[in-house]
């Protein structure tokens, strides 16, 4: 049964008798003996007021004093991201939705580039020049694989749309007059 009442530790026999900070196995990361604050009680820095949309984890009860303002959410990926931020960081869907949004965002980026009249040079962006300089064999293998897969796909599609369908007798065949019997 849920309860919101805090337990009075003074009523617990032996409470804290072994609570020597020197026994803390997490040393040196935590310095409990020096701890100045408990909970959200510190002297906060000045608060930044962001001039763009900043998504906030629902595990925060307030916006951090300073926030990043790079690339605010936009488009379809932005809508997915907003939806993802309705779920907590412990929810797998939160992260999977964000991963999905990233992939959609890549397509949006290419579309945006093209709309601005800039055709993205994807091989160059993926370091094709470095591959050419330092891994010619690997590059040849990748190009060969790409051509092979492309050719296989092309042939498969061509077969589907072309004359590969087997001929079956139809009504027109039935209506056609039979050849004259040999004399």
């Amino acid at each position: 049964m849920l309860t919101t009442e805090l337990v009075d530790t003074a009523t617990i026999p032996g409470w804290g008798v072994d609570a020597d900070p020197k026994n803390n196995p997490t040393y040196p990361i935590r310095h409990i003996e020096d701890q100045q604050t408990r909970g959200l009680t510190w002297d906060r820095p000045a608060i930044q007021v962001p001039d763009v949309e900043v998504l906030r984890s629902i595990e925060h009860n307030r916006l951090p004093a300073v926030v990043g303002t790079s690339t605010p959410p936009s488009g379809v990926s932005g809508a997915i991201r907003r939806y993802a931020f309705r779920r907590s960081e412990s929810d797998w869907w939160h992260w999977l939705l964000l991963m999905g949004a990233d992939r959609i965002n890549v397509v949006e980026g290419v579309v945006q580039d093209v709309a601005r009249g800039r055709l993205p040079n994807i091989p160059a962006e993926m370091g094709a020049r470095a591959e050419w300089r330092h891994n010619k064999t690997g590059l040849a293998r990748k190009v060969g694989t790409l051509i092979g897969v492309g050719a296989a796909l092309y042939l498969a599609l061509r077969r589907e749309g072309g004359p590969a369908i087997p001929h079956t007798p139809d009504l027109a065949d039935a209506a056609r007059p039979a050849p004259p019997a040999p004399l």
Partner: protein
Amino acid sequence: MPQIQHPEDAIVRVTRSCICGSDLHLYHGMVPDTRVGMTFGHEFCGTVEQVGTEVRNLKPGDHVLVPFNIACGKCHFCQQGLFGNCHESNAQATAVGGIFGYSHTAGGYDGGQAQYVRVPYADVGPTVIPDWMDHDDAVLLTDVVPTGYQAAEMGGIQPGDTVVVFGAGPVGLMAARSAWLFGAGRVIVIDHVDYRLEFARVFGPAEVYNVREIDDMVVFLKKQTDSLGADVCIDAVGGDAAGNAIQTLLGTKLKLEAGNAIALHWAINSVKKGGIVSIVGVYGPTGNIVPIGNVVNKGITIRANQASVKRLLPRLIEHVKAGLINPKAMITHRVPLADIADAYHIFSAKLDGCIKPVLLPNGQ
């Protein structure tokens, strides 16, 4: 050019930035909310151009190294030295603090693989580079050096311990190097690329083994360690690991797991009972198949975190000064910022003997 948006902001003109192994997780689409148009880069140093009205410790013209953590210095966590877990720098998640150029999951801040960058809480993280320090060393103190060092520190290494480091990238190399500083008696580095292992053999200096030449990593490591296992295992790999087809399919290809967790499996299964597994490799935040039963049965302690760079900087600067660590020895490539796509590919595909690439915004 970015603008001051908060009284504790500074604008820094970048003089050097790096590509980190963690950036490859972004590059491979394994960290969520990595939006198109965002600038990557959490390892950089540069010259202060402008400061906000409340910045006291920096002035224009100062040359600073900027820790990758964005930390307020005041919150519950910063007060404990957990600058990697600041509660006042990341709106999009509570699990991790703000990080420059590391997706919106780490706060949505543009990073330092650029000419200029906005640096929040400029009085807390950024540190003026000492006159005697080479700026190549300085830029590596922003992440890889403290991360490798903290990996060793979290391992709780005792004198004479056997330490196994999974991953011979810059962080793994630094973890191996740092393990000696904590008194390790034996350091073993595991990777799947020969040139990286050769580098680790000299830089560590460490015993090195190639994953591809070993049938069963856990059995091999047990045999190497009197059949009990290593005292400390460090996972300096994270989600981009090589070595397990099913995890690669689920994690790195389909993104249904937090990446390929094979290095973590090996670490948990290779450490001795009662040992410590230290994790600094980056994993995405979705599901994961981790052998937690073995963690319980073996009584393992797992320690993990983003490095709290500011906490470690004073000690590490002294170590560089004393010659105990030599970060710039890891730099193999110096690339103009304009050629960043090639640099990412060289680093990612492990071409041309690449260990650590540095980006130069003005091509110098």
